Each structure stands twice: as structure tokens, then as C-alpha cells.
């Protein structure tokens, strides 16, 4: 009896759903021939992973950032520039971006100890905007506002692939790593301590939990993993545009996916990403004028869904969907 009291009793159901989704994704390149669909699956996996990384700070440590594009952008630039200048392997740049992002995450982490709630979110927006200015203006190093084309040299050793199938696996591998880290933050020792911090910071400190250090650790890990996502995205697209990679759109999308799916649980961002990215992909395919779709409709739909979710489903859609799945199973 004593052994059967898990910290999060619902976790096993969450894990089953996640496992099912990973399997589906792994099979998809074997079954699906449509490139547009494979592209969408890659994007779903990438955004699921980045929203999961965001969730480590935003959900598990309660540090809601609206500036994660800063880490994403650093990942894209630091993977691109060493290839352009010195022809080094993309893996090197990926590591560089992750390290730089972790360093910036450390600064953001210390900010989080001074600033709470909306002030922290505003500070993170400011950070991403500062990086946008630096990278779009510092022409000698970053090539300025025109962006950076990445030389295409296919091969695993350079993290570049021909065709869509390999990218599904690359993004899936990335997602699996991020998901494993997130699980540790959800139910491992660190996760249990963070749960206490989320519940009541003062009470947590009163029993000896170093609440500041835990939050810094969560933000640093979140930043590092987000930069890896940026590097993968840049490699798959082959071009880095400062006004896109440091945009508030990117930051908001990471937060939105996690919030809509369900913050504070590992499975939330997976469900959020499937909903948001497939909707986005569908709209992009159906709407004739891509410009019109990009600028107007997405934002309106995002906004509406966000308001509805926050108002009526503050736990996100994950609990709702999981209970529907369970009911379906019982009915069958």
C-alpha cells in the first residue's frame, strides 16, 4: 500500500498517451507520402518539444516567459554563423547555441528572483527585443537584417537531410530528449521540490527549499533546450531571418501551446502542439492568400482560443482530452 502512492497519480495515463503519440510519429514517414503532411508532422514535433521546454520554466517553475524567442533565436544564429564563416559542423553550432542560451538563461533566472509575474514576462520580452536589435543591426557579424542562408551540406554529421522523412525522426529524437527532461522536472526529486515552490513559495522556503536556485535551474534548462530547437529549425529551413526568429510570435506560440495543452504537466504541450500546429497548417493550406492568413486570421483564432481556455479550462485541454479518451475506452 505504501509503495502505491505516486506523487502524481494521473501520470501513468499521461505517459501512455505520450507514448502512443511518439509511436504514431515514428511510423508516419513509413506510411505518409505527402510532403506537406510530413512537414506538418515535423513542425508538430518541434513545437511540442519547444513548448515542453518552455513548460519547464513556465509550468513547472511558474516562471511565465514571453521572451523564449531569445533562446530560439540564439540557437538559430549560433548554428548558422559558424557554418557560414568557418564551415564547421552544425553539431558544433548546436552545442554553442545551447551553451550561450544557458548563459543568457542564467541572467534571466536571476531576473526572476527580482521580478514577479507580469514584470518577469515583460523583462523577457525586452530581452528578446534587445537580441533582435543586436542581430538585425550588427551587420559585420550577423549579416544584419537580410538574414543568413545556411549552406546545404546534407548528412547526419552536418545535421542536414534530403527529404522530409529524416526530419520527422530528428524532431522526434529532440522531442524524446526534452520530454524525458520534463518528466524529471515533473515527477523526479527536483519536480517534487518545484511542486512545493509552486504551491507556496514561503512555506517551501520555511522547510529549507532553496526556491531561488530551483527556479534558476529550471530556466537555464528550459533555455538550453529551446536553443536546440532553434538550431534544428534553422537546419531544416536553411535560412535565418532575425525578424522572425526573435519575434514575439515565436515566444507567444511556445507559451500558447503549453497553456492551451495544459501547463505543469508533461503531456500538455504535446496535445497543445497537435491542436495549434495542425490548425495553423490547415489554414495555411486552405486559405488562398498566404499573407492574409499569416497576419490576420491566426492571431484572431489564437486570441479567441486562449481566452476561452484560460476562462473555462485553466488546466488546459489535456485533462479534458484524456478523460474523453478514457470514456471512449470504457464505452468500447
Amino acid at each position, binding site marked *: 500500500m*505504501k509503495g502505491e*502512492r505516486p*506523487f502524481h497519480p494521473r501520470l501513468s495515463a499521461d505517459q501512455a498517451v505520450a507514448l502512443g503519440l511518439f509511436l504514431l510519429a515514428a511510423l508516419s514517414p513509413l506510411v505518409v507520402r505527402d510532403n506537406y503532411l510530413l512537414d506538418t508532422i515535423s513542425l508538430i514535433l518541434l513545437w511540442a518539444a519547444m513548448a515542453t521546454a518552455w513548460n519547464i520554466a513556465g509550468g513547472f517553475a511558474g516562471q511565465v516567459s514571453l521572451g523564449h524567442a531569445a533562446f530560439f533565436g540564439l540557437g538559430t544564429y549560433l548554428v548558422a554563423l559558424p557554418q557560414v564563416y568557418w564551415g564547421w559542423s552544425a553539431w558544433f553550432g548546436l552545442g554553442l547555441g545551447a551553451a550561450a542560451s544557458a548563459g543568457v538563461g542564467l541572467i534571466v533566472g536571476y531576473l526572476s528572483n527580482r521580478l514577479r509575474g507580469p514584470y518577469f514576462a515583460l523583462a523577457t520580452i525586452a530581452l528578446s527585443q534587445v537580441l533582435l536589435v543586436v542581430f538585425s543591426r550588427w551587420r559585420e557579424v550577423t549579416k544584419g537584417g537580410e538574414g543568413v542562408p545556411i549552406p546545404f551540406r546534407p548528412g547526419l554529421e552536418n545535421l542536414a537531410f534530403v527529404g522530409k522523412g529524416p526530419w520527422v525522426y530528428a524532431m522526434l529524437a529532440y522531442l524524446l530528449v526534452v520530454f524525458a527532461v520534463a518528466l524529471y522536472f515533473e515527477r523526479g*526529486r527536483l519536480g*517534487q*521540490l518545484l*511542486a*512545493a515552490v509552486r*504551491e*507556496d513559495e*514561503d*512555506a*517551501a*522556503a*520555511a*522547510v*529549507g*527549499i*532553496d*526556491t*531561488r536556485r530551483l527556479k534558476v535551474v529550471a530556466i537555464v534548462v528550459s533555455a538550453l533546450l529551446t536553443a536546440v530547437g532553434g538550431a534544428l529549425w534553422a537546419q531544416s529551413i536553411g535560412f535565418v531571418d532575425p525578424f522572425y526568429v526573435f519575434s514575439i510570435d515565436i515566444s507567444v506560440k511556445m507559451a500558447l501551446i503549453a497553456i492551451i495543452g495544459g501547463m505543469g504537466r508533461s503531456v500538455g504541450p504535446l496535445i497543445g502542439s497537435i491542436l495549434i500546429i495542425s490548425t495553423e497548417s490547415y489554414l495555411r493550406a486552405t486559405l488562398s492568400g498566404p499573407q492574409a492568413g499569416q497576419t490576420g486570421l491566426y492571431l484572431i483564432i489564437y486570441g479567441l482560443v486562449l481566452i476561452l481556455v484560460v476562462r473555462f479550462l485553466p488546466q488546459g485541454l489535456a485533462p479534458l482530452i484524456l478523460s474523453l479518451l478514457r470514456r471512449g475506452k470504457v464505452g468500447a
Partner: protein
Amino acid sequence: MLEVRELTRRFGGLTAVDRVSFSIGPGEMVGIIGPNGAGKTTLFNLLTGFLRPDGGSVRFLGRDITGWPPHRIARLGLVRTFQLVRPFPNLTVLDNVKVAALVHTPSSGEAERVAWKLLEETGLAPFAGAEARSLPVGLRKRLEVARALAARPRLLLLDEVLAGLNPEELAETLGLLRRLHEGGLTLVLIEHIMAAVMRLCRRVIVLHQGRKIADGPPEQVGRDPAVVEAYLGEEFVA
């Protein structure tokens, strides 16, 4: 063990704690009493790092802990409970205690063993799987004590753990405190109602308007004219 010297804290024009000095020796069980607004909880907040003093110092186990952050003070063994109980509401009773034990061990299994042991000692084992917010207030107060014990206190500061309990809960908690004391734990209790403290503690410190006005055995303190005056109009049982 604990030496408090000239400790002072002001809020605007009000001096909530005014040059308070006392020391607590190992194995003591001391009651701190005083009318509402006497500065009792502020004193606890100063001792445990939740508030910074405007003057004075706190030494614990030979170290000057004035200005330390709360978690470091707790890890050194000076642990407090909150007057308005603050269990982690959405965690189970077991996890509330386990998480405090986790601070001192990397092993989840070990933390869980410690937590179960404490739940048995405090009579909370039957509620282990319930979410903390679902407990009635009497049990939540005891959970607050169990969680504080998991933090491995050398000196435990209890902020009104007796207030608001029904007679049965009161008897159980008093028994628990006696057992802890006999087990060698040093205890400091803040109470607003004095009857229980007078019975339980061999030494009582009285605060009034931020100042320490008496410090001694309950019988002596109860006869002190300054104390009688401070409590004028309140029920007083020595």
C-alpha cells in the same frame, strides 16, 4: 542555542518588535505570549529570515544568522510553522511531509520512509493519501507540525498551533509536543491563549507592544504587575 540581541523591526511609525533580547538553551520548551499585536509573529518572521530586522542580531548554534535567507536558516535547524497554516494545498498529506524530507536526502524512498514515520507519530497516517486542502483545520495544523519536523529542526518555532483546536485535538497536540520535548527537541511556542502554555512550559516570555515585559517561570510571570496590566480585561489563567 538561540541568542536574540536587541532585535528591532519598524513598520512605518510603528515599532512592531522593539529591542527584544532573550536566549533559548538546548532542550528548553518556552512559551511566548502576549496580547494581539504584541509582535509575536513578527518576532518569528525576524528569527527565520522572512523579515529583515532594522537592528539587533540573531545567533543560532553559534552562528550569526541575521539577514540569512529563510531556506538557509531552516537548513541550519531553526524551523518554523505558520500561524495561518500553509500546507501545500494540492499535494497529498504524505507528499507535504515527504517534500520537506527531500531537502535532506537525495533518495525519494528514504524521504517517503521519513514521511510515513512522522505521519504515524503525529496521527496523520490515516489521511496520507488525501489532498492537504481537504483536511479540517485542526488536522492541517498538525500537518504543519509534521512537515516542519521533516525539515529536521534542532529548534522548532510553533506559531499558534494550539489555537482553534477542539478539546480532543488540543489534548492530542499537547501530547505530541510533550513527546517531542522529551525526545530532546527544543521548542518555542507562540500562543495567544495562555492556559495551555502555562501548563506546558516551564518558562514564559511575555511581549507587549513589541517589548519584552516579562521572562520567567509561569507562576512568577502570572503575578507580574506589568503582565497583569497588559492583559487587563482579558481572561488570564495561571
